[in-house]
């Protein structure tokens, strides 16, 4: 996303090398980022938070569609952004990047610190997004959750992609996975 200063290797998106681009340019190519810890702005209310990211491509979700996905947000529009619960903030963080028209969504630890009920809700949301045609890059420590939504699993070790396991072949590779993820 252009946020981390030191990068090596190459990142190619839709045939374009984007490794050296500034983060605002990357956003305009159609990549949206939902950061770890959600990044909800405390000096903005929910509505302002929701409408903050600018539309970078046509085809983004209308606000009404977003409210269908996340009905809670509609009731809390005037509240200060950080007054929402953890789960609601996560919904807001995901919801606001859906408006932009980005097709690739980077979700960074969306289930961190959330109750199991909310985690399930997020799982359903990701499935809905997949059905709508979004590509989701999910960074997750909660392997069990990732297994319920992902099509492909990439194992990253010290910044390098060391393996890719399709979701269908997870059971066959449990031993290898335990080795990767084991302490």
């Amino acid at each position: 996303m252009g946020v981390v200063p030191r990068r090596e290797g190459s990142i190619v998106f839709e045939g374009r090398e984007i490794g050296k681009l500034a983060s605002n340019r990357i956003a305009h190519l159609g990549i949206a980022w939902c950061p770890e810890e959600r990044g909800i702005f405390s000096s903005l209310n929910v509505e302002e938070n929701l409408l903050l990211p600018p539309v970078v491509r046509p085809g983004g979700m209308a606000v009404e569609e977003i409210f269908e996905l996340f009905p809670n947000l509609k009731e809390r529009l005037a509240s200060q952004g950080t007054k929402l619960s953890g789960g609601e903030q996560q919904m807001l963080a995901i919801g606001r990047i859906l408006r932009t028209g980005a097709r690739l969504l980077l979700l960074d630890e969306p289930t961190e610190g959330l109750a199991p009920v909310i985690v399930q809700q997020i799982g359903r949301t990701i499935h809905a997004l997949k059905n709508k045609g979004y590509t989701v890059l999910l960074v997750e420590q909660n392997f069990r959750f990732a297994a319920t939504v992902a099509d492909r699993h990439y194992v990253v070790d010290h910044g390098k992609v060391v393996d890719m396991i399709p979701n269908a072949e997870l059971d066959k590779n449990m031993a290898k996975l335990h080795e990767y993820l084991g302490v």
Partner: protein
Amino acid sequence: MQIFGIATQALFGQLLIGLINGAFYALLSLGLAVIFGLLNIINFTHGAQYMLGAFCAYFLLQGAGTGYWWSLLLAPIAVGILGIIIEKTMLKRLYALDHLYGLLLTFGLALVLQGLFTNYYGSSGLPYRIPDELSGGFNLGFMFLPKYRAWVIVASLVVCLATWFVIERTKLGSYLRAATENPALVQAFGINVPRMVTLTYGFGVGLAAFAGVMAAPIYQVNPQMGANLIIVVFAVVVIGGMGSIMGAIVTGFGLGVIEGLTKVFYPEASNTVIFVIMVIVLMLKPAGLFGKER
């Protein structure tokens, strides 16, 4: 007629002066607050930029016969552009460092600007006439209200509240507030944050220059006018809360009035009352009256 043992003429006269001072305190601390909010830098050059605004008006009048009303528009733009140049060439490189370097840089720039102008124009004031439309005044019975003074108060209030409105209630303002909190994320959403920062500095500087133009007919145009004022304005900003917009406005006007009243009832303390208040506020509520702890 007397109130509290003071003649009403004197009391209201002093109150008016207090309100006028307050108007300038508010305008200047507003500019400082906007700059500090986003850039995290104390713009010591603010006083010099205020002075530049006044000089701009003076030059426009002397050199091109351009009157007051045009100066109100042109001076802030000119000085604002200078501010943008300063930000792009120097301030930008200091963001990664301790914030105190920004203070030191702007302090140095203030010395340069002030020194240059004092060299060429001496330290006595240059005259600037009140525009004809605003000369004269109203007799209100308990006091005489000069038109120009009334204009200054009204104009400052309007500009301050308009700025507040833009920052707190509009989309542009929401970008600014968000970038103050988490610039990296705002940038990742696709907004050119460095450009926003540059323009914000330019706007804050423009506000200072605007105040300078308005000050010219009252305080005369003089290279030291910013230096005398800037320290008091710092105190105002600290009392109000260093990033708070409403804080700057309310505290600015309020402290101007308090200072004016102090002059009436306890003149020896009038110079120091604002600083005393600042020390008290800093001990009790360090983030300022309207500020948020960072």
